């Protein structure tokens, strides 16, 4: 009896597999599970067996019945999807995607890192006055940086800001101390444009003022930012650098990521890449902005977003960042 039933199951499953349309499925179903089917007959004759046999046979019948039901269901689904739609699923994807400026992407990366350290992201105007762009940053009127030829002047002491550093001044005016801010933005210098010079470029200014802010704090923050941006532990070194609004002032280098310090064309053989100016905020700057340098200290840094984006995307022509040419823009993504 058992073998008979198993043979029956095998036959049923074979017929299901061979079925071509849903009408066949209906026929197979009635043939094997209908009232007149062999399984139904065995089930109804169970009463003629002993209790022991009844249990065994009943179990076998049920298992077989379930298997056939499942197989019918699966085949039916398959038949439906095969017959309902006729589509060309090999068509190419729509490649029309939007893009963010690489500056926005890189800038946001830096901002996110700084936000985690409690920095607020602020902004300042692109047209500045001499006071915010120079005087309040301890850049005296005789300083070469104020030469007519480097700055775009608008008359009546207004100018296109030459760096994002006036955002430091505006933040001190608005928030006082303690203070943690970062300000991404666009800056302008009177330069002839070529592959490595632009008259319009992007920076990010960072500033932290509190009691007992130290040089090691600055090193820590810079190292963290740069390690996250470049997605690896970067080695940094500070060298003396001179900027009127910081003292001590530094040039920050990172160990060349391409040759790891051995020297290559990217780092011009030195093993280091000059990345951003930074330093402890000059006491004069604090004083001008009504913060007591004997109570507070702080650090500030300027990250060249244009430079960073060039490194990240391996772009060697700075003009790309001010292009509105879709052929260029399409290459950038959203992250």
């Amino acid at each position, binding site marked *: 009896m058992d073998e008979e039933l198993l043979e029956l199951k095998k036959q049923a499953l074979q017929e299901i597999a061979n079925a071509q349309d849903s009408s066949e499925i209906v026929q197979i179903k009635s043939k094997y599970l209908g009232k007149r089917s062999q399984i139904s007959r065995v089930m109804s004759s169970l009463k003629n067996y002993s209790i022991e046999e009844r249990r065994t046979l009943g179990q076998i019948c049920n298992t077989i019945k379930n298997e056939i039901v499942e197989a019918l269901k699966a085949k039916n689904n398959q038949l439906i999807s095969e017959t309902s739609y006729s589509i060309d699923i090999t068509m190419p994807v729509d490649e*029309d995607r939007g893009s963010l400026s690489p500056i926005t992407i890189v800038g946001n990366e830096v901002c996110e890192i700084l936000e985690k350290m409690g920095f607020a992201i*602020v902004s300042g105007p*692109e047209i500045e006055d001499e006071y915010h762009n120079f005087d309040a940053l301890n850049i005296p009127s005789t300083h070469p940086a104020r030469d007519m030829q480097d700055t775009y002047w608008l008359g009546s002491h207004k100018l*296109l800001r030459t760096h994002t550093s006036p955002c430091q001044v505006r933040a001190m005016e608005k928030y006082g101390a303690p203070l943690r801010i970062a300000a991404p933005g666009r800056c302008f210098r009177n330069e002839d444009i070529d592959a490595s010079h632009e008259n319009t470029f992007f920076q990010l200014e960072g500033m932290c003022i509190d009691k007992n802010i130290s040089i*090691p704090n600055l090193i820590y923050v810079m190292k963290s930012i740069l390690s996250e941006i470049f997605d690896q532990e970067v080695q940094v*070194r500070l*060298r*003396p650098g001179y900027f009127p609004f910081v003292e001590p002032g530094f040039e920050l280098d990172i160990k060349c990521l391409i040759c790891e310090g051995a020297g290559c064309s990217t780092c011009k053989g030195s093993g280091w890449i000059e990345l951003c100016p930074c330093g402890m905020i000059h*006491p004069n700057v604090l004083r001008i902005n009504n913060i007591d340098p004997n109570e507070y200290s702080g650090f500030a840094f300027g990250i060249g977003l244009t430079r960073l984006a060039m490194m990240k995307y391996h772009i060697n022509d700075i003009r790309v960042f001010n292009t509105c040419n879709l*052929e260029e823009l399409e290459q950038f993504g959203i992250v």
Partner: protein
Amino acid sequence: MQLGGIGTVRYRIERNESMLISCNLLKSYLSSDTLIDWLGIWELFTISSAEVERVEEKGKNTSGVIVAKVTNVAKNTPDVRLNLLTVDIGNREIQIITSATNAYIGMITACCPENGMVNGKRITKLEILGIMSEGVCVSEKDLGISQEHTLMIDLPKEYMVGRDIKEYINLDDIIVEIDNKSLTNRPDLWGHYGIAREIAAITGAKLNKLVDPIIKDTEDSVKTLTATVHSDAVNRYAAIKVSGLNQKLVDLNMKLMMHYCGYECSTLSDLVSTYTTLEYGLPVVVVNDDGIENISIKMHQDNEQNCIELNSDNLVVYANGNPIEVAGVCVLESSVATADCSSILIEVANYDATTIRKSSISLHNRNDMSIRHEKSLDPEMVLTSLYRCLQILQTLCPSACVSSNLVDVYKNKQKQRVITLSKKKLSSYLGFNMDDSMVVSILNSLDMDVIVEQDAYVVTIPTYRATKDIEQDADVIEEISRIYGYDNFEPQPLELQLDTMRHATSEYSIEYKVKEVLASKYNLHEVHSYIWYDDDFLKSIGADKSDCMAIVNKTSNRYIRDELGMSVLASTIYNARKYSRYGVFEIGTIYNSNIPKKQLCILLCDSAKMVGETYQHVKNIVYGLIRNLTNESVTFLKADAINSYMDNANVLNIYINELCIGQIGIVIPSITNRYAKTAAVVMAVIDFEKYLEIDVTSYDYQKPPKYPVVTLDYTISLKKNENYQMLENWLSNYSSPLLKSYNLIDSYDNGQKRKLTIRFKISHSDRTLRSEEIRGFAEELLSYLGRQFEVET
């Protein structure tokens, strides 16, 4: 009278952006230099003092060059341009064929026999026109002494024949290039002596103290020289006259060293003044003395007739009433000490940095001398430099003697500065407490005296650091920390701070979110257009922006944008030539009557046939952006174009509640058609500040209705003069407690007729609607609609 050309000013051969330092000269100032690795030290110098760009070993490519004596000169070679020389090289005589024409019998020169090397080139025997040449004669250029390459070098008679030339001339040197920029605030590093002092400080080597030389005063009849200063721009001026010069006495070693450092010196006075300039940094100037008796220095007056090329920005030195030099910038041609001049005036001065900078810029003549004067060098070094120049002059040319009294006008005396640095402040900057002994030893190594008090250090700054470099306590902290070594600091995390400033960030976050949505959800490209308008574009569309703010020192594209739409349109429209459809956006600042405004511009370009869809798409994007922030009601109302490039026919104002935040419109086809005949451009310009003001807290949670919602769809046929807005206005006045909402779900336009299908949702808040209630509502609504519109049933 003319301004001097090249030769009247000391010029670095290559460029003025960096300086070249000779390690041989540095070594002469250090008494324990043998411990210093002169190739390796520069890495440490870079991180503690100033950036070194390049280190080059000189002389290592030249070997086997020996002192030789010409014993015969034969002209009878097959080629008349060549000479056949016989030269004694000590152990034998060899034959050399040369094109040099200055050989004479008995001449002491240098040659390189076979197997020697000249500038990396291995010398071999060579057969020239059938004659064997057994080596080469060497020119000054071959040895790196000057640019002279056509003549054999003429060596002093004392040089012993057969000796290696390196026994006499110091060809082996290490030359270091330092970026001038990194010396901006280190006036003390503009001379070799200062660099040596710095190396002593960072390595612990011992620096030889400066001793003012004793001047041989040999002239019997010392003439009277006077100097008067009529300008505050002169801090100090010193001068002395010397006569009896033989300008030919040029020391080869010194000449070589100057050449390595980038200077060509062909006369004795050139050589000596350049050398002493490079030693102490202060420019030493030599002019021809044609009987100078009185010197005066003053700003040039515009009405002076004597030199038309000068201007009132120039500080001028006059001798006997005639201008001889632009102070700190250049010597006038007529006063240059030439090769035949035997009487000179040596001047060393210290001028106001800004005055010299202005003066040199006004003459378009920024050079090595003016750049040095711009650095505020130490006036205390003026006499030291002058004496040093005299001393070397007299060593090289024993016949030189002082022919006047010394003049020294010292108007603005440089004082030592005393700075008090609190220990607390030092610790706060360093992030740790440094021992008193370490502080003292670092400052002493920099020549600064320290008195240690309970809470502070009292530091005396030497004059050469006090001119503009070290002015207050933070400057002293820099000195301590850089000598301690920035590499030795352990990074320390910032202490956590409560997010007291988080609110300041919200504007930035929203802006970034908007950009992300526009790029990722609507596939638009972010652009940054220039802050100034493009003149060509303005001209092409006949727009006049001369009322805008203008950049004074820019000749074209000088008007600052006062509307973002125009700027984005101008900088992106050319894409329409290549792309049938595209979308871009920018968030940027514009200036309207000098007031900054942040705007968002969205621009979609597609074929003119699709203009309806494009317009609708822009509208949807704007709606979506607002809905991202708030639940406030958004309405679009027909309006007039505020921008000149927009077609007045299809303009909508965008409202949030009652507040108009921007406009949507179509760019005038005649503008678009210049770039693409079949394209249409739809733009939205939004006042981004108003967008940011949207009340984001107005998100109101609304419970979904408890009882089933019934939907009723009705199609309305619009007549030619009717639009959706009219239907909307009519519907908004209809009120029923059952009506929850309605919206447009379909529109159909076959050119003849427009049909709009509106879906009405009704429900009761307390129970399921009964069918008679639904029927009642429908009848009432249809009758209301029918009063104004044609409803299809």
